[in-house]
């Protein structure tokens, strides 16, 4: 994170604490206490405008998109397609046709892997993957390399968990065809400079695929400006519904890719013996899409825009810093990413206490954190841990919740209490 950007975040207008009222889940009680949701990196809570937009679709114009010529179906199609434009603006794409709706980041990355990378890769070629990627951005590439007898090369991380331009450059060769890295790591909260990484990849004639699942929550992407070739994310991590995500691809690359799912909506002309397919993005959206969810994603982006991205970043950063400071007072706590406040993610362990034992203590206190390997076993190996605790903050969390986490951590050693 560069200094100017950080300064901008710290000096922008602060968030209105009343935003908490927008999130029904914040009124839930757990074990008799207000539920403190500190697992935002797994999935975010949903604000009322998202829930209402989805409910309105189902109750007022719930019909299929593209099929039929009546006015209600037209309205549904309009609302559905409006999200494509909103996503395009939000991530800085040049054209809405570059926005493919998928079922999530995982599906988007798999689509690039099977439809784009598989035809590209020859035996002996190399494919570079970040050393601490989420399984969604690791296993597809690993398996593809196995099938194609290509070489999977790991791009090392620095001590903060970043794949720096120098580190990426150190593993690039003239055989590298593709680089897959995250925008932000879900374990370390480290941010990668995608613009610099894309430049290095392109200099070697390779493509850059970015896993934006965590990154889009904390740094607004500029896919065209950064010149990444593909960027995948899930709606559910940015206050939208589950079941939908986006794959951004440069249009000429999308045009070169075959569809992976055959069916309705994606065809052009179906002859007895052959079929021609529609242009991207529809070619990749076979079948009835998740209409309510796409509309919900549009509402989530509207919501973010109405609050202002900067004040959300500011609040997350402040809370994360507060918790890191608090946990650092506890001699039994080991923090693995003490400098990555910006991500809202704190990965840590309590000495002598297994993360699952600690998680039950947090649960008793009404706090949800994540305990385990975070779908990132390569990252766990890199940390030399079999599992960690992860608290992750969002802009709607508050200081009280952050302090409750710090206090509960002091009691982690009493983990057997929950059983008696």
């Amino acid at each position, binding site marked *: 994170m560069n200094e100017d950007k950080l300064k901008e975040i710290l000096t922008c207008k602060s968030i209105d604490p009343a935003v908490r009222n927008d999130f029904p889940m914040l009124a839930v009680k757990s074990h008799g206490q207000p539920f403190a949701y500190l697992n935002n990196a797994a999935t975010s809570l949903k604000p009322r405008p998202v829930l209402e937009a989805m409910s309105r679709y189902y109750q007022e114009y719930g019909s299929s998109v593209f099929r039929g010529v009546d006015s209600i179906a037209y309205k549904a199609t309009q609302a559905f397609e409006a999200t494509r434009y909103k996503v395009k603006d939000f991530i800085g794409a040049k054209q809405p046709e570059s926005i493919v709706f998928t079922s999530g980041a995982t599906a988007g990355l798999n689509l690039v892997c099977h439809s784009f990378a598989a035809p590209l890769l020859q035996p002996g070629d190399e494919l570079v993957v970040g050393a601490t990627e989420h399984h969604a951005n690791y296993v597809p590439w690993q398996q593809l390399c196995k099938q194609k007898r290509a070489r999977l090369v790991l791009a090392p991380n620095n001590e903060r968990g970043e794949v720096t331009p120098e580190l990426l450059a150190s593993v690039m060769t003239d055989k590298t065809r593709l680089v897959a890295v995250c925008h932000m790591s879900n374990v370390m909260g480290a941010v990668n400079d995608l613009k610099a990484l894309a430049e290095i990849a392109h200099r070697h004639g390779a493509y850059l695929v970015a896993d934006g699942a965590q990154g889009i929550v904390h740094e607004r992407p500029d896919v065209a400006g950064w010149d990444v070739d593909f960027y995948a994310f899930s709606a559910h991590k940015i206050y939208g519904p589950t079941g939908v995500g986006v794959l951004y691809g440069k249009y000429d690359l999308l045009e070169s890719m075959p569809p992976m799912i055959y069916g309705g909506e994606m065809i052009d002309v179906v002859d007895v013996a052959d079929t021609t397919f529609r242009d991207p993005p529809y070619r990749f959206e076979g079948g009835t899409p998740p209409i309510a969810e796409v509309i919900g994603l549009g509402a989530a982006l509207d919501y973010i825009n109405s609050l202002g991205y900067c004040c959300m970043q500011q609040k997350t950063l402040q809370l994360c810093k507060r918790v890191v400071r608090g946990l650092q007072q506890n001699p039994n706590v080991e923090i693995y990413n003490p400098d990555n406040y910006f991500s809202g993610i704190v990965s840590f362990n309590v000495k002598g206490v*297994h*993360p*699952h*034992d600690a998680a*039950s203590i947090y*649960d008793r206190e009404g706090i949800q954190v994540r*305990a*385990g*390997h975070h779908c990132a076993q390569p990252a*766990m190996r890199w940390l030399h841990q*079999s*599992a960690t605790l992860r608290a992750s903050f969002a802009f709607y969390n508050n200081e009280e919740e952050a302090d409750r986490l710090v206090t509960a951590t002091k009691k982690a050693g009493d*983990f*057997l209490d*929950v*059983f*008696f």
Partner: protein
Amino acid sequence: MSSSDEHMNLLYRQIIMDHYQHPRNKGLTGAPDYYTVHLKNPSCGDDLSVQVKLEGDRVADVRHIGDGCSICCSSSSMMSELLKGETVEQALATIASFKHMASAEPYDADLLKEAVSLHGVAQLPARVKCATLAWIAAETAIRRDEEQARQPAATSTPSQPTGQDETRTS
């Protein structure tokens, strides 16, 4: 809570911590007459291997090694101590009883001895799997080893050439 309950709970905690910190029968052997089952709980990362050696109708030895929480590890240690020396029939009854206890069903406490200290997991559905992993592994090992003993070596399943090792996720 009465003071005798409190006293018992203190005792139970001590038993759990003792097994967690000083596990019995820990470490695997390469001896060929052991049947190994490797179980994982992919959602949380608990990872456990249990080895069982049968002699006639008796569980002659139980070994285990794993990576998991206090409940998973202490339960595995207690399981190894308890089943070792039991007949196969007794061992299966003990395992069934433990599984009943963990799911808050009626169980025979006499069979479980020290392992009754883990009865509290029944109140935390999310942690039941931690407690039962070792017992499920032991049960699988015993049943498979028995099956194998009943079959002549030539007909043992070709998909498992060693016939000794099994990895599953729970």
